[in-house]
């Protein structure tokens, strides 16, 4: 532990990510990378595996993701983890301010991670958008793209392939730029690898501070 962080506050080890979360994170990241590479090759912007192989891998990986995502949806609702994604504006601007200015001055993060609140307000927004909007759109447009020949039989003959393809492409760009920012953001922990380590073994060293505020806590205990 370096002197700088020690001065700021005391660090404690917290078990942030359960097995399934870490498994899902890395599985999904692998799928996303495969899909991006093979997708851009299918789109004619890369030459790596050859069109046929790229397109085949893309399709199988996409279908696999679709099924795996159903398990994630099941998990997120049965464990109540969905509450980690409920958006809030509280301290949102403080977080934005932190990443724009505070981070350069060595200020502490305004909303440090807690077991019960592992996403800061900005993350909540981004991950909600990702898990509830962007990824489903990408999966739906991908599935439609894949099932193009069945459209008339499914009563979807009015769909336009160029439009579906354009939506799918736009989603790909959005995910790619998310990936760029995400890969950078994982270096913003108290050390460059702190976040990565947490996502591998589950434990992260975080600053010990006052208790999590009510609004942050993911589970709302209702009286029996």
């Amino acid at each position: 532990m370096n002197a700088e962080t020690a001065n700021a506050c005391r660090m404690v080890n917290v078990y942030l990510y359960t097995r399934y979360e870490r498994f899902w994170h890395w599985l999904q990241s692998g799928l996303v990378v495969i899909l991006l590479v093979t997708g851009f090759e299918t789109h004619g912007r890369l030459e790596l595996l050859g069109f046929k192989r790229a397109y085949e891998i893309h399709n199988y990986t996409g279908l696999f993701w679709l099924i795996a995502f159903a398990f994630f949806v099941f998990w997120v609702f049965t464990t109540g983890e969905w509450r980690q994604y409920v958006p809030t504006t509280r301290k949102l601007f403080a977080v934005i301010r932190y990443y724009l200015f505070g981070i350069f001055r060595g200020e502490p993060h305004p909303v440090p991670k807690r077991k019960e609140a592992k996403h800061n307000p900005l993350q909540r927004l981004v991950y909600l958008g990702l898990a509830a909007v962007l990824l489903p759109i990408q999966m739906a447009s991908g599935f439609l793209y894949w099932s193009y020949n069945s459209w008339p039989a499914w009563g979807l003959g009015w769909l336009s392939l160029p439009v579906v393809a354009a939506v799918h492409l736009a989603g790909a760009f959005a995910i790619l730029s998310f990936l760029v920012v995400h890969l950078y953001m994982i270096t913003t922990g108290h050390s460059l690898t702190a976040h990565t380590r947490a996502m591998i073994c589950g434990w992260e060293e975080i600053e010990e501070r006052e208790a999590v505020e009510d609004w942050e806590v993911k589970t709302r205990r209702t009286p029996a």
Partner: protein
Amino acid sequence: MPVPARMLWLPAAALFGLAGIVAASASDPGPGAAPTAPGRDMAQQATRGPQRWITSDHSKHEILKQPFASGPEVTRACLSCHTEAASQIHRTIHWTWVDPASPPEKPMGKGALTVNNYCVSIHSNEPRCTSCHIGYGWKDKTFDFSDPAKVDCLVCHERTGTYKKFPAGAGNPAAKPTVFPGDGKTYEPPDWNRVAQSVGRPTRDNCGACHFYGGGGDAVKHGDLDSSMHKPNRSLDVHMGVDGKNFDCTRCHTTRAHQVAGRIYATPAATERTPLTRDDLTPRITCESCHTATPHRPGVKANDHTDKVACQSCHIPEFARVLPTKMRWDWSTAGRMKEGKPYKEKGPLGFPVYDTQKGDFIWEKNVRPAYFWYNGTIDAISLKDPIDPTRRVAINWPVGSPADVNSRIAPFKVHEGKQPYDTVHKTLLVPHLFGPPGSEAYWQKYDWRAALESGMKQAGLPFSGEFDFVETTYVFPTTHMVAPKERSVACNECHTRENGRMAGIAGVYLPGRDGNRVIEVLGWATVLGSLAGVLVHGIGRAVSRRRKEG
């Protein structure tokens, strides 16, 4: 805190899972392990046991043992048993050279006023052109198309391979050994009894005697039909290969009452895509007849292509794979002499690239086809139709559109030409090319005006006397020379941004070729913007940290 060993299984499992998916999706099932393509099985069943038998030995017929001196005498003998044959023939395009299904106000065919950009038209050139007519004596427009005895049964049915029509004999074989100046070969009169007694169902050699030599020579016209198809190997034609299925032409060009299945100008070969499973007597002229509309193994993407892409587009990667075919014919340079004499010049492929009689040629081998939307109909202009000489004139063109459910993207040979047209009437012109010494024929006098005057007169059409040469195109559907499946066109030859086979095809979204330009630009801007953003942010962090430490 050190990473506990038991925690490592998670990412490891994820990676193994991914590797599994990639391996499963990337590896094709081996030939032994997987079922074969159903379309192949279907076709193999449909063509199993091709042993055909007949109940007559023509060498035992007394009437075929009598002395014959000419073709019509043989025909009369044939007709004495096959009483309906001539009247059946008289209704076919093989006889009339006019599409029987074309409307009377717009008859299509060489026998009418349809032209091409080879020797342009048969009118005034009959004795040469009609050496490929299945009749005897069509030497000019006085030919009697109703005479049963004028039908040439032998050219399609004799099996000795010795029966040859004289190249300038209006469909007649030579009466005595005669040299044809065009190829310097001696043409012998047929041994009439031998050829008459040999008759049977037409073989590749019968059909090929004309269709492999269209345009006046081997490999000139079609690109997918030439003398290499007499005895092709499997890799040239998977159906006709002597080391493969060894099909005759009539295996697919099934025939009823002498009507041979196949496209005739604007009349498609088939209007319904009927597989044999639905109608076992359907003509086998379409690929789908035997192979069905989903011929590949289940799950193979090519099955999804059959609604838009003709089988031929992928399965005939190139035409003219053995012999080069003529791709351009420029009549405007004809007439040059060397020391006052007509001459020929051979090109790198061993075929003439210049001929005083005909002008400049371009020959090509292993030609990648052009692709068009095609519903089985090829429309064409006639000698009466006005043209726009300021641009290249399409003499014929494939009919079809992406919106038409019967259209597919199909391969074609496009033959370019530069040929005479009437600068006043704005119509294409008929040159009188072939004729005896002293006639107005171009190949005698090398006088375009006289040749055009004579040609148009015999076609019964007006000529202003003013002419020039215009660029034209003529298309041939590419449907023969189907390669073995290993040699079919690879995905990325169409699904590519640069110079793909489908570069000119509109009306269909092609992944790998197409993309929404706005999203493309905005997308890369967003990605590069993010990259620039995090770069600047990261540098800022590094600088501020150093400053603090410093």
